[in-house]
């Protein structure tokens, strides 16, 4: 049985949480995602509230800045990982101005599913978001209908 292709409406209905202490960047992401047609997008500029918001919203994807005052992104990555279910695929896309190899490695090791350096190409970022969401949707389908795996 061929897997059902993921419909664009399905993607756009997903819940997105963007965390960045810089308002301009949050606004940029908001503008981009609205332009793309995403309907359930949430933004956060206070990293102190990130965990609480994350737990409250249970977003399908998190767009995360790394270097923020107070709580840094690596701590959040660890915290998210602690709350992740084993059979769940909840992607985190790191967007950071830290270009070092160490940051990239560390973030990916801590569970980030993708890593994009600022300044970024907005089209690339929107494509990556779509890809990650698509993977999540396919993962969910697989979990709900294990028989699909057999074929």
């Amino acid at each position, binding site marked *: 049985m061929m897997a059902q292709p993921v419909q664009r409406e399905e993607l756009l209905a997903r819940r997105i949480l963007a965390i960045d202490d*810089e308002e*301009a*960047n949050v*606004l*940029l992401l908001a*503008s*981009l995602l609205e*332009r793309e047609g995403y309907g359930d997008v949430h933004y956060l500029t206070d990293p102190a509230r990130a965990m609480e918001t994350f737990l409250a919203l249970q977003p399908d994807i998190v767009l995360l800045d790394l*270097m923020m005052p107070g709580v840094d992104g690596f701590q959040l990555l660890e915290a998210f990982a602690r709350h992740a279910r084993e059979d769940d695929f909840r992607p985190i896309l790191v967007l*950071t*101005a*830290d*270009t*070092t190899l160490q940051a990239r490695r560390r973030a990916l090791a801590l569970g980030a599913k993708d890593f994009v*350096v*600022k*300044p*970024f*190409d*907005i*089209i690339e970022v929107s494509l990556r978001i779509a890809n990650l969401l698509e993977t999540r949707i396919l993962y969910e389908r697989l979990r709900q209908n294990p028989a699909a795996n057999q074929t």
Partner: protein
Amino acid sequence: MSARPARIMRHWANQPLAWKGLVVVALPLAVLIGALGSLYISSRVEAQAESDVRRAFAIQRDTYRVHALLAEAAAGVRGYLLTREERFLEPYRKAEADLPATMARLDADIRDAEVRARFERVQARTAQKREGLATLVALADSPGDPATRAARIEAALAANKVVLDSMRAEIDNIQRREAVLLDQRRARVESVQRNFLILTVISALVGLLGSLAAVYLFSTGIVRRVRLLEGNAERLARGEELGPFPEDADEIGRLARRLSLASQLLRAREQDLRESEERFRLVVEGVQDYGIFALDPDGVVASWNLGAQRIKGWQAQEILGHHFSRFYPPETRDYLPGRMLDMARQGGTAEDEGWRLRKDGSRFWANVVITALYDDAGQLRGFAKVTRDITERRRTEEALRQAREEAIAANLAKSEFLSRTSHELRTPLSAILGFGQLLELDEEQFDTRHRAAIGQITKAGRHLLSLINDLLDISSIEAGGSELELERVDMGEMLAEMHALALPIVAEAGLDFRLEPDPGPLAATADRRRLTQVILNLVANAAKYNRDGTFVRLGCHVLDGEAVVEVEDDGPGIAAADVPRLFTPFDRLGQQSRMRVDGSGLGLALSRRLVEAMGGQIAYAPGRKGALFRFTLPLAARPADEDKAMRPRKAARKAATAKSHNPVETNAK
């Protein structure tokens, strides 16, 4: 002593000892034998003289006896004649019996010629007398006329008497002669005895003198010199200088010479040893930078040098005889000195670095080496201790370590700063470029003027981004924070890749992109990513600035043991006045070019730093027509593994010749 005896003495001294011994023994022996000989001779002479005297007495006795026998015979015969008694004939018969023997004795004893002549006459008279007596006896017994007989007897008696008288006269003469002879002989014996006495005295004197001479010679020639030699041997044993010794040729003289040679040899050796010891002592004592001193087996200071005095402050007389533990500060004094000696005893040496005390109580950081000293018998004789004051060195090391730590910290701080700066610049730029791009996506909503404005914002933003990237690159290279990954790079392969990668840019500028010379099998040591960055920068520059020319050339060859990469174009080239500023950051050579060409102005500056970081050099040279940039790279040490190196290069070249039309996005800076 005059010259002659001296010469004799020298001659005597030069004779071998055996000869001297022979002389010393033979001389008295000869004298003794001489004395014995003379004694023998004189005793022979005396015996001869005594036998002569005895013979003279015998001759006198026998002559009297002859006379007496005959006289008694005659008297007897006369008595017989008168009495006819037989007993008167007894003397006659006795005489007849004894006379021949007596006469024979006399005949044997007599030597003197005169006495013999008289004896012969006595013999004749004796015979005559015996005949006369025989006649008388015969007459007495004859028959006949007594008268005639008496007359004849009377006549015979008378004749007999004459015979006896003459014989008596002869005998008297003999007696006298013998007496004379006897006197002569006595005199001779006395003379011989006198001579013998004289000879004996002379012999005794000569023997005495000879013995004295022998003893003298022995004492001067041997005993005295042996004593001298003995004295010299004792001096030699005591290491003193030898006394003078005569230069004699005999065994003792040779022994003395050998002794003297041995002494000279010993003294020379002793002198060498003393000088060597003295030198060594002076060196040790004079060393100022090292405290060198000796400890006895218990750790008591036994010697002290200038360096020890300088480092520790004690004079030699203040510290000799004290235990070396007083050099140690209180916290280590109780255990460390003993432990050091134990270690030296067990392992030969013990080394330590730590605080030690000076005389004034101040501390210094010392390096100490203690070496155990053993004699030939393996007995511990003590320890040699060498101490250095390395306080200054320790301080320097401390300062160096601190400086290094500070430098590392500063470097870390700089890296941290660069990283923060990068982050801080990129964050707002991200918003600018992001929104610009967002606007560009919706540009159909704007009029031309706004679109141009949006374009300018985006372009300026990108320029700012490349500026930030290059600047951070340069800073990080200068800070040493950018680690190069140097590896073996096949230059043919690398250039083919670069050709393929930059071809679209060059082609877009309407230029021919040549790859010459092909480097062939040539490998350099470089950071692959950084090398790509440099080559692309140079090629992009050539394409950018060559507005009137026809080509861009990329090539590589070996020169003077280095790989040389060249990028050349046939554009306008660079004015000679501008060449010195080519590699200076932000210098873009003229206002008009900025209007038409993109670039941060950091590309060449960055390229230069990258090339230098990889161990090469970059320079500009006027090309045949336009500009020529040339940089070097160290050759890879190991020659290329041909098979491995060739295959990928061929593949790459194939890609280059196919002139791939895939648009390659290069981030030309």
